[in-house]
């Protein structure tokens, strides 16, 4: 089963809709609730990152028998130092993002904590690609 979402930057009123849709789909497939939580927390943090930092982006989710793969691509400013961005507390988020309850530098570490595989590559000025896998 494959899902594709277009994500609009800066629009927090609909941020989380993609993750919510995936949560419902996983519940319908009777996936273990503990796995669902790991998947949707990782995806939600990634979705929030796109909304918080990029002009726009896409999320593609593949639900397979043995794993869930999430491909998150954004057209944003890119991450200058990915290694530093993986450190808890490192953040370049704006005040408006912080007012929504995010932007404290926990997003990428939260994704890594929940993922079985987390690959991220970023080009300054072009955007960021993330690939997250969680085994079922």
């Amino acid at each position: 089963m494959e899902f594709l979402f277009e994500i609009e930057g800066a629009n927090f009123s609909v941020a989380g809709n993609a993750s919510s849709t995936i949560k419902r789909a996983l519940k319908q497939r009777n996936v273990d609730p503990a796995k669902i939580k790991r998947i949707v927390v990782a995806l939600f943090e990634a979705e929030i990152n796109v909304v918080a930092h990029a002009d726009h982006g896409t999320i593609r989710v593949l639900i397979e028998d043995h794993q869930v793969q999430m491909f998150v691509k954004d057209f944003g400013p890119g991450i200058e130092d990915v290694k530093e961005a993986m450190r808890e507390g490192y953040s370049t988020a704006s005040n408006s993002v912080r007012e929504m309850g995010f932007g404290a530098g926990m997003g990428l570490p939260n994704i890594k904590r929940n993922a079985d595989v987390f690959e991220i590559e970023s080009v300054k000025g072009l955007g960021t690609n993330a690939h997250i896998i969680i085994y079922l």
Partner: protein
Amino acid sequence: MNEIIKRIEARPVCGDVCSLRTDDFEFAFASDLMSDVLRLTYEKTMLVTGLCNVQTIRTAEMAEIKLIIICRGKKCDDQMFKIAKECDICLLETNYSVYRVCGELYSYGIKPLY
């Protein structure tokens, strides 16, 4: 839940809060930072927060939190109600501060997570 509602002078504004049993909530976690909420691994947890926007509800949805206490007199809006109903999340509003709500919950026997 009636005793908790009374102690914190809360207004049930969404969901059938009274149908919830205290047994459903062993723990409380207070935060205005949603990424910290997303790190929780315990169930039976209620969220105490002063953050009142749609992302509060979405975060609770992802973290499997079924009761949110919105503090400091903040008012939920219609979009929050809509998503909370869809996700079967109950909302309480109170004029009390987060600190005071936590004190009341603690003295009632609701445990901290850490």
